Structure formats: C-alpha cells, structure tokens
C-alpha cells in the first residue's frame, strides 16, 4: 500500500468515524447519568430524515440541521418520559424508539416526497460541503506533510471538525465542571445527589437532552454530509456500533475517540477490499470486517481485555424516598 492509498483510507476512516463518534459521545452523557440508551440508532435515523427533508425544502443545510436536532430531541423526550418520569424499562423504551424511527421516517418520506422512502438528492447549500483549510492547495506538493494536510486533515465538512471538538469539550464538561461531577454522580448514586438537594429528574433530563442534540448532529451528518439525502434505514446499525464503542471506551471521552476511529477504520477497510488484499496478500472476508466491531465488543465486555464496568446506577429508575 502506498502512502497516498493509506491517506485515502485514513481520510475515509475519519468520515466514517464522525457519526459513530457523535453518537458515542451522546450515549456517554446519557449513560453516565444512569440512563441506558439503545435508541441511539433511532434518534440518528429521525435526525437524518428530518435534516435531509428540511434541508431540501428550505434549501439551507443549517435549518436542516436544526430540524434534525429537533426531531432527535423529541425522541429523547419520549425516552426521558418513559424512563425518568414513568420509571419504565429503559431498554424496552430504546427498542420502541428504534422501531418508531424506522417506521415513521419511511412513512413521512413517502408521504412528503413519494420517492420510495427517501428524500430527493441535496445539492449546493442544502448540504454540508467540504471545507478546504488554509494553504491546503499551496502545501499540497510539500513531501509527506503536504498530502497529509491536503488529503487527510483538510477537505472535510464542518461537522467532522465539530465532532472532533466535542471530544475535549465532553471531557472538560464531565470531568472539570460542577455540572459534570453531578451528572456522573447521578449515574453512580442518585440517592446521594438527591440528598445534596439537587434534582435527579432535572439532571437526568438534561443528560438525555444533550444526548438528543449530539445524536441529532450525528444523524444530520449522515444525510447532509456523508451522503446527499436520506435513504431508508441509512444509519445501518451505526447506533449499535456507537454503543459498542462506548463500552469499548469504558465510558470515557478520549477513549471513545480511539474506539470510534478504530471502528471507523474497519468500516473504511470494508469499503476497500482491494487495499487489504494487496497489503496483506490474503483475502479477508468483508463479512468478518463487518462483524469485527461486535466481536471485539463482546471480548471487551467479557473482561478478557480489561474490565468494562458501567455506571453503577445505569438502567435503574430512581425512586425518591418518602
């Protein structure tokens, strides 16, 4: 594999990792606050559809992004209502949200655009276009660093950079602010937080809302950045891979970045089977690459490579003592 091919694969890795990373950090906020969320997939799907649809109708990708976030927040609202207010089973609520999203998006897409459950293709300002960072073309011919800068670092849509920026931001919010401390505490021991006079319900709803905003951006990136429009079931299990990445990262932001880059790399490789063959000189089954994130997660989860311990109060509804 030559240098340029490597850069291309890494470039594609970065693009494939972005929705995973945003969804993974979304799950991080929710689960650190004690709310399991297997509905990441559904929220992304709703956001992808609404952002694609609204961006097409309004012609502005930013309005589309807002609509996507709004749709994802609505789903978060249902999840919060079920799992916080009515103390229902968080896993079942997540399953319901995934089905609801898979159904509603196609129904609405068919009803609005009648194109077999997809939105029309987005062009121009209705899509996030690649940004060329300063001097990218000028430095293109500098050996080694030039192509690296031009191919890999420059030339992504704004949301890719946003996703990368959310990593340190999440770390700072969770581990360096009072809000973050409380959020983590509510996922470990909500009774203690309640005793300190802080509302468990409000904190958890805030966490679920942050999760909604981030999955909203992730979904919008799918429909308006990675691809040009919404296709039915376009998230294709990315919500679950993000969940796997979250466990892989043991619920820590920087590790989430590593995990998502790894899983994104596997996805990028699956798109380029020719590269694997020419490099390793063996045929690697595409299906194995597809399954690898899940297999790795099972191994991690089983504690064969370090132990993944979830937030202690995760999945448990909090019942206030009377």
């Amino acid at each position, binding site marked *: 594999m030559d240098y340029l091919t490597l850069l291309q694969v890494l470039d594609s890795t970065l693009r494939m990792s972005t929705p995973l990373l945003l969804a993974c950090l979304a799950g991080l906020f929710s689960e650190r606050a004690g709310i399991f969320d297997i509905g990441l997939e559904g929220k992304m799907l709703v956001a992808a559809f609404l952002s694609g649809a609204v961006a097409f109708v309004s012609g502005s990708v930013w309005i589309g992004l807002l609509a996507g976030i709004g749709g994802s927040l609505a789903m978060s609202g249902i999840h919060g209502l079920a*799992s916080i207010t009515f103390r*229902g089973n968080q896993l079942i*609520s997540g399953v319901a949200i995934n089905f609801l999203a898979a159904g509603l998006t196609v*129904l609405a897409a068919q*009803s609005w655009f009648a194109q077999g459950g997809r939105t029309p293709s987005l062009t121009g300002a209705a899509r996030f276009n690649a940004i060329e960072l300063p001097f990218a073309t000028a430095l293109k011919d500098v050996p080694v660093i030039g192509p690296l800068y031009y191919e890999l670092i420059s030339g992504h849509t704004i949301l890719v950079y946003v996703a990368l920026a959310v990593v340190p931001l999440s770390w700072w919010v969770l581990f360096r602010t009072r809000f973050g401390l409380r959020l983590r505490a509510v996922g470990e021991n909500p009774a203690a937080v309640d005793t300190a006079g802080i509302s468990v319900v409000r904190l958890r709803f805030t966490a679920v809302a942050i999760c909604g905003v981030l999955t909203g951006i992730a979904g919008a990136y799918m429909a308006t950045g990675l691809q040009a429009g919404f296709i039915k079931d376009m998230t294709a299990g990315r919500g*679950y891979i993000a969940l796997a990445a979250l466990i892989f990262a043991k619920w820590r932001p920087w590790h989430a970045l590593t995990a998502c880059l790894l899983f994104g790399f596997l996805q990028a490789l699956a798109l380029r089977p020719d590269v694997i063959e020419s490099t390793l000189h063996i045929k690697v089954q595409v299906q194995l690459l597809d*399954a690898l994130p899940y297999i790795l997660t*099972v191994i991690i989860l089983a504690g064969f490579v370090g132990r993944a311990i*979830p937030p202690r109060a995760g999945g448990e509804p909090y019942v206030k003592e009377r």
Partner: protein
Amino acid sequence: MEKMPKWADVLLVPLISLLLAGVLSALVILAIGESPGKALWIMIDGAMGSKYNWGYTLYYATNFIFTGLAVAVAFHARMFNIGGEGQAMLGGLGVALACTYIPWPHWSLAILGAGVASAAFGALWAVIPAWLQAKRGSHIVITTIMFNFIASALLNYLLVEVLKPKGSMEPATGKFPEATHLPNFHDMLAPLGISFSRGAPANVSFIIALLACVFVWLLIWRSRLGYEMRAFGHSEPAARYAGINPTKMIVISMTISGALAGMMALNNVMGEAERLVLNATEGAGFIGIAVALMGRNHPLGVVLAAILFGALYQGGAILAQDTDIPVQLVLVIQALVILFTGALDNMVRMPVEKFFLARRLGAAKAKKEA
C-alpha cells in the same frame, strides 16, 4: 391488599395500552393524508377476510409465538433476550443443514430432526451471552445485540461463500429435498373434509408452536425448575439464599429461550421457503419482544398477541399493496405497542390502580355508614 383486581391487570391494562397505540397510529395515518377507518378495514379484511389471508396471518403468528415465548421465558428469569433475531437466524442454519445433508425418509422424521437442530443452534447462540453474563458479568442485552449482528454477518458469509449451490447467483441454499416438505393447512385439513387455501403458507409447525406453549406453561408454572426461574427473576438475593444457583438459572433460562427462538426456523425456513435465504427472519425476533410484553409473558397471552401481530403483518402487507401507505406503518404500530405495554406501562397502570383504589375506599366507606 391487591391494588386492582386480576382481570384489570391481565386484560384492562393491555387493552388500554393497545387502544392508545391504536389512536396514535390512526393519527399517524391521518397525518400522511389517508383515512384511518378505511386503512383499518383494509387491514382487517386483508388479515382475516379469506382462508388464504388467514393462512398468512397464522403463518406469521407461528413465527411470533416462537419468538414471543423465547422472550417471555427469559423475562421470567429477568433476562432481557433481545437476541431472538440472531438465534432464529442460527436456527435457520440448523434447519438448512439438517434438511440438506441428512436423507430423511419422511417429513415427520425430518421435522423432529430439523427441530432438534434448530433448537440446538438457537440455544448455542443464546448460551454464549448467558455464560458471559453469569460468569463474566457482561450485560446480556448488549451481548445479545452484538450476537444479532455477528449472526447476520456469519449467515451472510455462509450463504455467499459456502452453502450457495454451484452456478447459482443468489445467496441462498438450494431447495430442500421433497421428503422434507411440511404439510400445510390445506394438506392437513383435506382428510377431515375441510377445504383450506392451497397457496397459504401456514403449516404443521403451527401445531408445534402450540405444543411449545403448553411446554412453556408446564415449565414455568408446574415444574420445580420454572419455580426456581421465577424466584430468581423476582429477587436474586432471595433465590440465592434459598440455594438456587444463579449461574444455572441464567444459563438454563437463556438456553430454553434461544432454543425456542431457533425453532421458529421450522416455520419460515422449512415450512415456507423450503431453503435458507438471506435475512429469512425478517425482524420476527424483535416482534417477539412486543408479543411477550403484550401477552404478559403468559403462553396464552403470547398466542393471542402473536395472532394479533400476525394479522397486523399480513394486514399491513395488503394495505401496502392496495394503498399508498408503506408497509412500515406496521413498524410504527409495533413500536407504539412496545412503548405503551412496556416502557410506559406505569403511565397506563397508575391511573387504573388509582381508579380501583378509590372505588374500593368508596365502597368501604358506604359500608361503614350503613
């Protein structure tokens, strides 16, 4: 004191949940510019209007009875088996191998052999997550989700690279031998002088599904093992104190659950397609969750809920044929049923409980005054 009478818990609460799901679905249909009344009528007619349609409804229901029972059995031991889809896929692999490589003389032997194979393959796919949960503490929900994807990749590989007959382009096994052909309702009812649609896919595995319901009922409520499973499900510390081995409970409940999910393949792979195709399960593993929730984890409830969902699937398919409403409407209804009977159960339950409590207090007061 019971908060409400048993009939309210078993019938009223699920019916209210169903009604809420129905009203919201009607609003969705209105929102996409169609008439809910007309849609409902087409669905009912499409699901139950003729013997042919009933044949499809019961065919789907057979799938859902198996996956619903699978989820229900695991629920009794407080395990959430979300991996029915993967287990049913593996069950399909078991059926395909048994039917292709063993020369069965008659379908009655073939169904036994294929049944054992499908149950064993399904159980295998459930027992690994169960063991990991019991021994290594990895969460069963996450592991079973991961196993769904691994199963899907595995089957994709096997069908594309290994099991596909030479010269065939389609990723599917060859047609099973004629001797493994299961009698459908038409074949079964003809000797009794009852005519049934020849083309409908409902087949003898419906009877196996009903037998599985009896088995689950006996297991859960009439056996020592079932008692231990329920005790473990209610309170792990109490069960442990009573000498019940948690590892054994997790592994056994998930094995039975996986075997039931795997046996679904008798219906869809052996009974209907008569070969193994890609994505043969079509989401039936997930519908098991809705069926178990709706049926309150009781075999009788599971049968009723499975027939309801069978009708929903068949009706939804006809609706998509006859109108502009996509078949994904079924997913929305399914999601709403899961939401109201599962996650928002308390929202429905609490007002009902309050109502009965108020009535009882009122009655007691009236008695006192008299």
